[in-house]
């Protein structure tokens, strides 16, 4: 139960930060994608199921708040969470570089799908421009932030693990 509550709080905090701190933390007009870090880190630490649900709910929140079509972000986030959940098989508590690599890949996937759905379908074909202007900076920034955020999330996860071990 506590775990679910903590996850919910994490999602809301990340979302609020991402959408409201834009004045203060954006570099070259690009924001780090905190939610994708959240989803991938948990998928990596806890497996497919957590990644899936986490992705679904954070995507849904974004959808309800900003998207025109409810369900699109949820679908993208969820699929990324699920696929990244397979990586859980090689999870090791001491490895801090691998998840960051995964965050980079997911961030790219997310942006790519986003481009396809929202821009390509409207006839905007200049992929290279979007890649240079938005995707690459966003991925770099996200990776940078994930170095710290992953550590934090990992710590929280460890605490939760200890607690549930005690409880069981």
């Amino acid at each position, binding site marked *: 139960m506590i775990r679910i509550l903590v996850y919910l709080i994490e999602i*809301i905090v990340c*979302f*609020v*930060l*991402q*959408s*409201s*701190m*834009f*004045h*203060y933390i954006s570099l070259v*007009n*690009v*924001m780090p*994608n905190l*939610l994708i870090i959240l989803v991938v880190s948990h998928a990596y630490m806890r*497996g*497919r*199921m957590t990644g*899936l*649900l986490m992705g*679904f709910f954070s995507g849904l*929140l*974004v*959808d*309800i*708040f*900003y998207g*025109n*079509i*409810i*369900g*699109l972000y*949820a*679908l993208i986030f*969820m*699929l990324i969470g*699920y696929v990244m*959940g397979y990586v859980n098989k090689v999870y090791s508590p001491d490895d801090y570089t691998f998840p960051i690599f995964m965050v980079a890949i997911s961030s790219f996937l997310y942006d790519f799908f*986003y481009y396809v759905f*929202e*821009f390509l379908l409207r006839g*905007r074909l*200049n992929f290279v*421009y*979007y890649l240079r*202007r*938005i995707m690459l900076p*966003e991925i770099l920034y996200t990776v940078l932030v994930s170095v710290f955020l992953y550590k934090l999330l990992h710590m929280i996860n460890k605490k939760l693990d200890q607690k*549930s*071990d005690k409880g*069981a």
Partner: protein
Amino acid sequence: MRRRTKLNINPKHVLIVCVLLCILLIAVSFRFGDKLLPVRNAVSTVITPMQKGINVVGTLISDQLDNFRSVNELLEENAKLKEKVDILTYQNKLLLQDKYELDGLRELFELDKKYIDYPKVAARVISKDSNNWYSVFTIDKGTKDGLEKNMNVIAGNGLVGIIVEANYNNSIVRSIIDDKSFVTGMFLKTSDICYVKGDLELMDENKIRVELIGKDAQVYDGYEVVTSHISPNYHQGILIGYISDIKLDPSNMTKTAYLTPVVDFERLEEVLIITELKEPLDGQED
């Protein structure tokens, strides 16, 4: 398996269920988009106070940081600015001369701007769309303060955008530089109609694309573009920006150009909302 039976559910099944749910949601929101508005309203009513709080904290921090700026930097800047003042005073004189001439000409042509005093409400920008692709932002006033969908948003004396969604205590504004934005504009001097269309590729250069200017329109760089009388949602005569780079299209029928908006979208913190909706066009001719 230390965690009860919960883990025994195959993630694959959950995936399938959730994917179906998503597809259903997408279909539903395509078909009955309006029915979902209450849900959005509820969620955003809860989240908005949090965003407001974060915003206050952020402003405090950034103000503090600004105070720490070294004196040296300011001195240097002062010297530079003094130099600039000299140059600008000179330029200003030239411009004033031009202005007198312009005023005279305007009187001749009776081209006074039609800024009717609309009732306005000020609001603060509290959050931006959580991804980097769009220029949609949220302001801290909503239906509670009398805002409605399709109200025009301005800043300074230029057009910012339009309210696309009014919730209880916040509203979502789509700015004119947004990739999906589309405004019918008009050249103040010649009354030629054009279409002002946001484009992500031009956002960095702080420009907007202007399309479908008539081939015969006698327009030149630097002309003012205002919102037109045929636009269904925008009030007439709000300044959008200045035109540049006019080019004839390959089709030889229309011209395309770029427009520099008068509003600085990078540093948009407070906006004004015209709390009067444009009346529907039904009654009017042309």
